[in-house]
């Protein structure tokens, strides 16, 4: 019996891993620019599409181990590229404006990117062929197997969480971003170009979402509507964990990941509603989320 | 005695912003509170008006203990305040700002099915207050010059027909000519309506020209209180005010 519980735990961690990547991006951007970026789901979808498309092209020519690095770079590059375009061109103009307009702008970007995906990659879902099975599976007792690639995704999630912690606390840019998040005026006063900090942060967030989309691709398909579906779950994570807090995003994604697994296994009827009930309960008792700040 | 605090205390960690203060206001009296920055003047007003919870002591207003009363109850009782950083309804006209206050006073701010424009009594009274304070009727609050915005802040408080009106630096950020103009509006209005005034003020001319009594605060304590001319000669007060 214990290996089944282990399998549940792992599939919960698996879901939490890439959900964290999307949520982390969302919360960093909100932490700094106070903008709720609905287009973040589209960046996840872009990462997925670019990875799926690139792998479809070159998976034959390059040796297997390289596949995984290629996927991550492709996803990250694709999302970062889109980030570089939309932040300075569109988002920068609404930082000072009313919340309604910021939300509406990111909603517009989400719609536009959804259709651009249709234009570029066509109506059908894109999928990889091999890499997911290349790593094969490991037996975990009781005749049960678990794909090694699952561990890769989970490891990727924790690694990036670690990197983010390191980046935010130890590197110069990280500290500047946090200081700008705390107080824009002071950061600008001591000579930092806040505008470029915004762009860099947005690209960091976009890259995270892109990687999230890319690493899931081997085990799933890139299809339209991907961005819209993942977004609402990323919102649940960010709301539970607290807007603007990376720690919150990590714990939030674990909570949502585990809730989904428990829901599917034992309460199939209310599996979907369960996540949102938790979000509402958290918001009732801790309006700013577990580690949110105003 | 309209207001009396009995060794009122409010601490922010080690900082004793209000340290066992016994502050008294008589009916129809205009009291000025002066003192260097951080003397606890604004904290005292915040505690009296319910914006901050006290850490100790009592507040007696017209014989009733209102130490733990809610903001809503204090306003119903007649304690109203204005703000140092102007707090007015930016998106509404000066006329509407006043009407909202009057409606709230008359307890009909929640009436859903009574058109505000058809309420002639409120309109008439609002217009009177606008004239009293010399404010234009239709310009939006946000478009008013700084002086008028300060006046509107006080006028909205005034429209609640308070018994005790606490003003937090009503003339700050305004030229001296404007300062006198503002006080020449507020003081007669208060006298006419028999409202006792507590004014936090830095400008010594204003303090000495317009107040009945002056209370000097320093590091959370009342250093001295008395008539304006007594305060003027008081050596200790001069040292504190000069050194600060």
């Amino acid at each position: 019996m214990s290996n089944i519980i282990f399998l549940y735990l792992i599939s919960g961690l698996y879901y939490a891993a890439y959900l964290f990547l999307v949520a982390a991006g969302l919360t960093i951007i909100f932490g700094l620019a106070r903008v709720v970026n609905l287009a973040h789901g589209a960046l996840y979808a872009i990462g997925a599409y670019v990875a799926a498309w690139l792998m479809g092209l070159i998976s034959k020519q390059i040796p297997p181990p390289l596949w995984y690095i290629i996927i991550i770079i492709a996803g990250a590059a694709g999302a970062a590229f889109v980030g570089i375009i939309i932040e300075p061109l569109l988002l920068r103009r609404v930082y000072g404006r009313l919340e309604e307009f910021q939300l509406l702008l990111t909603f517009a970007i989400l719609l536009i990117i959804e259709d651009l995906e249709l234009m570029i990659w066509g109506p059908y879902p894109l999928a990889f062929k091999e890499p997911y099975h290349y790593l094969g599976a490991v037996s975990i007792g009781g005749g049960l197997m678990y794909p090694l690639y699952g561990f890769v995704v989970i490891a990727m999630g924790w690694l990036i969480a670690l990197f983010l912690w390191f980046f935010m606390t130890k590197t110069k840019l990280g500290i500047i971003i946090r200081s700008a998040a705390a107080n824009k005026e002071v950061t600008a006063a001591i000579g930092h170009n806040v505008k470029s900090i915004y762009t860099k942060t947005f690209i960091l967030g976009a890259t995270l979402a892109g990687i999230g989309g890319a690493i899931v691709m081997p085990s799933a398909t890139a299809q339209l509507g991907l961005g819209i579906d993942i977004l609402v779950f990323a919102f649940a994570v960010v709301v539970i964990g607290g807007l603007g807090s990376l720690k919150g995003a990590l714990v939030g994604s674990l909570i949502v990941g585990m809730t989904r697994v428990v829901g599917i296994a034992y309460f199939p009827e209310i599996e979907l509603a369960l996540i949102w009930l938790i979000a509402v309960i958290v918001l009732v008792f801790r309006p700013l989320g577990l580690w949110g700040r105003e | 005695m309209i207001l009396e605090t009995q060794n009122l205390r409010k601490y922010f960690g080690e900082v004793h912003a209000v340290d066992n203060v016994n502050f008294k206001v008589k009916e129809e009296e205009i009291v000025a509170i002066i003192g260097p920055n951080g003397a606890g003047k604004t904290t005292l007003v915040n505690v009296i008006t319910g914006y901050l919870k006290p850490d100790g002591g009592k507040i007696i207003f017209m014989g009733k203990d209102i130490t733990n009363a809610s903001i809503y109850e204090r306003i119903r009782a007649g304690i109203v305040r204005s703000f140092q950083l102007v707090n007015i309804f930016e998106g509404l006209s000066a006329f509407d700002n006043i009407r909202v206050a009057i409606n709230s006073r008359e307890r009909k701010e929640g009436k859903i099915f009574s058109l505000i424009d058809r309420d002639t009594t409120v309109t008439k009274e609002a217009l009177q207050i606008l004239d009293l304070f010399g404010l234009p009727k239709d310009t939006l609050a946000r478009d008013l010059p700084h002086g008028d915005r300060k006046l509107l802040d006080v006028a909205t408080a005034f429209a609640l027909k308070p018994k005790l009106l606490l003003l937090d630096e009503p003339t700050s950020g305004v030229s001296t000519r404007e300062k006198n103009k503002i006080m020449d509006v507020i003081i007669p209005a208060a006298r006419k309506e028999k409202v006792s005034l507590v004014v936090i003020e830095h400008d010594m001319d204003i303090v000495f020209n317009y107040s009945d009594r002056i209370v000097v605060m320093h590091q959370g304590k009342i250093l001295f209180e008395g008539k304006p001319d007594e305060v003027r000669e008081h050596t200790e007060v001069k040292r504190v005010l000069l050194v600060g």
Partner: protein
Amino acid sequence: MPETFSNPKEVPPEARSKLSRRELLGIIGGLVVGGAIGAAATYVAAPKEVVKEVAKTVTVPGPTVTVPGPTVTVPGPTVTVTPGARPVPTTPLKIGCQTFMKGGNAPLGVPLYEGLVAAAEEINKAGGILGRKVEVIVRDEAGTDETVKEYKRLVLEDKIDLYIGLISSANTPAVAPHAEELKCLSLFIDGCTDVVFDVVDRNPVYVFRNHFQSPDGLINNFQLMRLYKRKTGKLPTRFAYIHPDYGYGRLVHAHARYATDKVMPENVNAYEAFVKFPGTTDFSAYITKMLEVKPDVVLSSEWGGDFKAFYKQALGYGYFKAIPVFISTLSHGTYPEFLETDYPEGIGAGVHANYWFEYPLLDQNPVNKYFVDSYFAKWKRYPNFEAEGAWTMLWAFKGAVEEIYAKIKGGWPETEEIVPILERWAMVCPAGVWQIRKDNHNGYKDAISGVSINDPKLGFNKLTDPYYIRVDKISAPPRWQLEVFDPKGPHPTATADWIFRTWKKGELPDGVTL
């Protein structure tokens, strides 16, 4: 109109014009009075108890086609058009089509459009229907709401003469009532849920459908038992299910459960999951749960992009090794090239019990050969059952129009005249013998299921070792849904009701062998 503002940073509006009390009353009065006048006008204008005269249905003595003996009617030369009393319009025949054109469901939906266009081009090449060229207008079958609104627009604004389409079992129950009310001849291809003609539209007039769903769930359920018996020598007892959470998934499940409870009373329903559809890309928790309950067999009805995500993840978990027999009713339903060669072999292959392009064998059924060759030539892909359904439906419509035209000597027939012909229409189509039943306007053809095998030459996984069951053995007999089945009763469809009442416990129904 007084303006209001929510935040000072916004540009301030012009000083608003002051509204006097009189004007205020005037406006409110005007608005309310205007509404009242409008309502009164409707009350007076609308005729109350006058029932609009419905055209008398034309009964035409036509040849009844004996089903078992297949008369081969290859789509041959068109009938020569002689100008009759009512002139045949020269304007093109506008066909409205709705199907999934994008997203996870496109691999099933787009072939429907392609099959329809292939048939339309052949018909136009052969001179059209009674000389009228056929023109197809296609719209994306998005959510149920957009589909209903878009259908009304096709009928009312684009003024289509004929409607062919619909994939989702969520959309046909929604559109059918509107088709009857708007009196537009609507030939559904899929959206196969029996609920349409058993519950929602019990006496259909303007709505027909190429096939229906109950045989699909039943034959694939029997195929599960058959493959398990072939593999282990005994019948399975522990069943598990994973379905998309909408009409199709729910009814495949219902029929499978009714049949299994009858045939094997001691079966165990180990786990049933209904998954949000479309859009679920992470099945790891569902896979884990199924591995936990250790079922003998798993019946699924997942399909399209979501199904591909499912089976790839399942491969990683060694799911197909742990589960003795797995079948999805629609695994091979999308266009054949969609299911790549990494799909496991030797497990069940479901094609919605309708059609796999290699069967009936091309040399035995010239209609199938003609269809597969012309479809591949045009679209460079092999057709799926949706393409075959649309293709057959348009040829059936052409045949019916030409048959009634020959009877009434002239003029383009009214829809009310075409309907009785279609109601007893039978022909040999690419999938074999196909016949529409008068009482529920459903198309009937024998059900097919099979086993999965990789074909390196073709480059995709395909169906082999076909398993047939005659359709009348696994669906309710004629008029059952009108005379016996109670829509408000406990059973979801007429077939479920029929199984419950007529199948004996512990035995296979007659006509079904494992």
